[in-house]
């Protein structure tokens, strides 16, 4: 079973990397970029076929390691 955990910075947390990317996009002349926030995506292959169990395991993974919940939010998706 495939799953995805997306980790993003909380609103209001300074994201200097996102700012730098935003600046680079603007200097490339890409139209209409208002702002950029950078995050991480984890693609995870799971043994379990039970969706509820998989979601619980992914939540535990995100809370314990993948995200630092002081400054980051995460979203768990089981893709099937």
């Amino acid at each position, binding site marked *: 079973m495939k799953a995805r955990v997306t980790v993003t910075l909380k609103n209001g*947390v300074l994201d200097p990397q996102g700012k730098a990317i935003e600046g680079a996009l603007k200097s490339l002349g890409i139209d209409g970029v208002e702002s950029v926030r950078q995050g991480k995506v984890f693609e995870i292959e799971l043994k379990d076929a039970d969706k509820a169990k998989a979601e619980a395991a992914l939540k535990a993974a995100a809370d314990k*390691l993948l995200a*630092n919940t002081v400054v980051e939010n995460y979203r768990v998706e089981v893709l099937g």
Partner: protein
Amino acid sequence: MKAAVVLFPGSNREGDVASAIKRISGKAASIVWHADSALPANTDLVVLPGGFSYGDYLRCGAIAARAPIMNAVRAHAERGGLVLGICNGFQILCEAQLLPGVLQRNAQLRFMCKEVYLRVERSDTPYSRRYNAGDVLKIPVAHGEGNYTADEETIKRLEGDGRVLFRYVSPEGKLDPKWNHNGATNAIAGILSEKLNVLGLMPHPENHVDPLIGPTDGRGLFESIKTVLEAA
């Protein structure tokens, strides 16, 4: 004084801090491997040294904070034992939630390797009794992620409880955004745990202990620890 320096894959300042401890206390520190589950018997100071544990993968200090030895370090801290985290060690202490908050990318996005000025905020802690409150120290930094941040409530609590031990200041000891080289909230360079026994700081006091190299402003930190442990 019985010090243990924890070695993670990618630590690189363990030798510097072990040599500072030897120079000041006269006793060699043991080097403890991250995969061990116990500290040497009667350890009274644990040091998490600087470096790039696990190549800074995921987040600085994130993987090291979950290493087997960290359970023993946590138990030592809970007993009131001294734990000192320098640079990457500070990042590991935050990731392990032994200290609150997080060290983010420096505000100007550059790795900073230079000498900075730190103001000692109080002298009544195990790490600072050989300094006076208000002393300005010249200490080197070398980091890319030292921009200390926490939620408003945590900052208020740290400030209210006097848990900020070091701040980045001008050579005259004044707060000035120009001298807060990594953009840290309230120019915070080092913080203490609630019981004052855990200290995390970004600068490297262990590199300023030998007159051969220049300033020796870092000695006071290790002399303070020695005084406290030898009186115990």
